[in-house]
């Protein structure tokens, strides 16, 4: 049965967010709770998730975080490793339709009410409010992880999720793929890009490879329907795209005239 998760609207989220500032991880952990009086739910379409299920999710997330140093501030590598583990936990424990998962309110609730301590720990030093209040699901603490798991999930023969492709991607890879909706919106295309990165020669810089193929791919998307291609066709197409000379290159020459200096 599809779950309906509590939603916290942007106004309530903003109010809570201002109240959470300057708290410590320990304080936020003590205030975290699985319900709030300002939440709403979708009117129909599933069953409301119970507070015990929400607590079970956040318990799992904290247990995973502990393996990477929580609540003590951790290095980037540990926090990114937590992301991968947390993505799998969120995807497994939250039975969401994509319409529900596209609703910013459920992510606001998780970040600001159910597990604010984890957000503060994961994003120690960040002042980006988008980690807490969801306006862009590729940036929010929990939304981006659930959507990453959805995008790169390659179900096994018996239907179980396989997140090995997601685990193979670096933070930079993920940012470059998932922040382009025209690519991430087609999970099979996003997975093909991930496979291309995974199989690139060792001497290839993945960031450069992505920077090469992404604009080319976006141009092709205007007149090629990648959703009709098989995985093999997708892989072939991307390999060719990565190797081909830029067929629509727009050259912007540097302007070295001294007058340009007056603009700096």
């Amino acid at each position, binding site marked *: 049965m599809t779950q309906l998760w509590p939603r916290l609207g942007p106004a309530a989220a903003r109010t809570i967010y201002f109240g959470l500032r300057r708290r410590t991880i320990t304080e936020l952990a003590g205030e975290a709770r699985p319900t709030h009086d300002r939440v709403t739910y979708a009117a129909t379409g599933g069953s409301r998730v119970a507070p015990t299920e929400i607590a079970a999710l956040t318990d799992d997330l904290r247990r995973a975080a502990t393996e990477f140093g929580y609540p003590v501030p951790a290095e980037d590598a540990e926090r990114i490793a937590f992301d991968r583990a947390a993505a799998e936990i969120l995807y497994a424990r939250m039975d969401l339709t*994509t319409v529900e998962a596209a609703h910013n309110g459920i992510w606001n609730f998780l970040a600001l009410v159910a597990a604010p301590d984890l957000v503060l720990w994961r994003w120690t030093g960040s002042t980006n409010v988008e980690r807490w209040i969801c306006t862009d699901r590729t940036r929010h603490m929990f939304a981006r992880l659930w959507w990453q798991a959805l995008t790169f999930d390659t179900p096994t023969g018996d239907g179980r999720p396989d997140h090995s492709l997601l685990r193979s991607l670096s933070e930079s890879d993920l940012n470059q793929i998932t922040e382009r909706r025209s690519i991430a919106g087609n999970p099979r295309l996003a997975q093909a890009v991930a496979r291309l990165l995974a199989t690139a020669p060792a001497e290839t810089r993945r960031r450069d490879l992505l920077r090469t193929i992404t604009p080319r791919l976006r141009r092709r998307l205007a007149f090629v329907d990648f*959703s009709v291609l098989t995985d093999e066709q997708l892989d072939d197409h991307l390999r060719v795209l990565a190797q081909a000379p830029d067929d629509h290159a727009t050259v912007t020459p540097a302007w070295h005239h001294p007058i340009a200096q007056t603009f700096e």
Partner: protein
Amino acid sequence: MKDVRPFFVPRNDLVRVSTWSRLVEDDWEDLGAFVENWDYRTRLHLRCHVACDVAAIRTSARLDDGSPIGWSLGWRATDTGLLGDPVVVPVSDEPQTVVLDIPADRAGAGLMLTRRIVLRRDRMSATPGTARWAGSILWSDETPLRLTGQGSAFPSEAVDFRAYGLDPAVSWYLELPATTDLPAMGSMLLLINSADAALVAAVTRQRRHTEVQTALVQAMEEGVVEQLVRWALVRWDQLDDVEPDSIGAAARTLATRVLPDPDGWTDPHVDQMDLTAAIIAGARRIGWGRSLA
């Protein structure tokens, strides 16, 4: 913007498609602009009839080498950008009926139903001007469909401006993002001051508004249009290549509808009163704000 592809495409009159219909109980009904009472448990069962003149399409698109071409009927969610798996069938001279199932767990608040004729395999010996890549779109059409909500709901919320950190003396505030590629429906929010009881009553009433309520709503409409158009003009050079359904795309479309020549208004030194007047006049011409007729 005219859709120009880097290869020959068939003439539109070689393709015939019906409107979409939906299976409701045991009857096929015309699919309207939205599906009433859709929720997360509603699996959409759609169908349409398609027909084309295969030989003429091949000739028209210069694809006389027998390359496989097919119909691709699919959808994408307009709020998440998520693509559904399309139904792909070979083209035929005989009329065909194609059924498309849209699972509720992967749908979106809004959908764009797509019908395309596509090349099915790469053509390694393609001549210049002919489709080369598998998936090349030779013909297409799109049908929007709203699943949740009715009509074009503008994201809005009545809030306590004082608690929200906004000036409690103003009636509304339009939150817009700094970047252009964010989804329109997730990144803008019209905040209405809950202390302005008259405005809250006016926007929540669905019909039979009083004259005062109509005037309040129209004034806010004009103000919102002005803010969106001004937001677009400041970023005009970034809006050529924005994601579909993004705030940038929506604002660009609005600005183009409201101002006959948006490029002419991007100069920061343009007279601000002239710009306001042009926006309000443009908004009224397309049906928003007051009508003096």
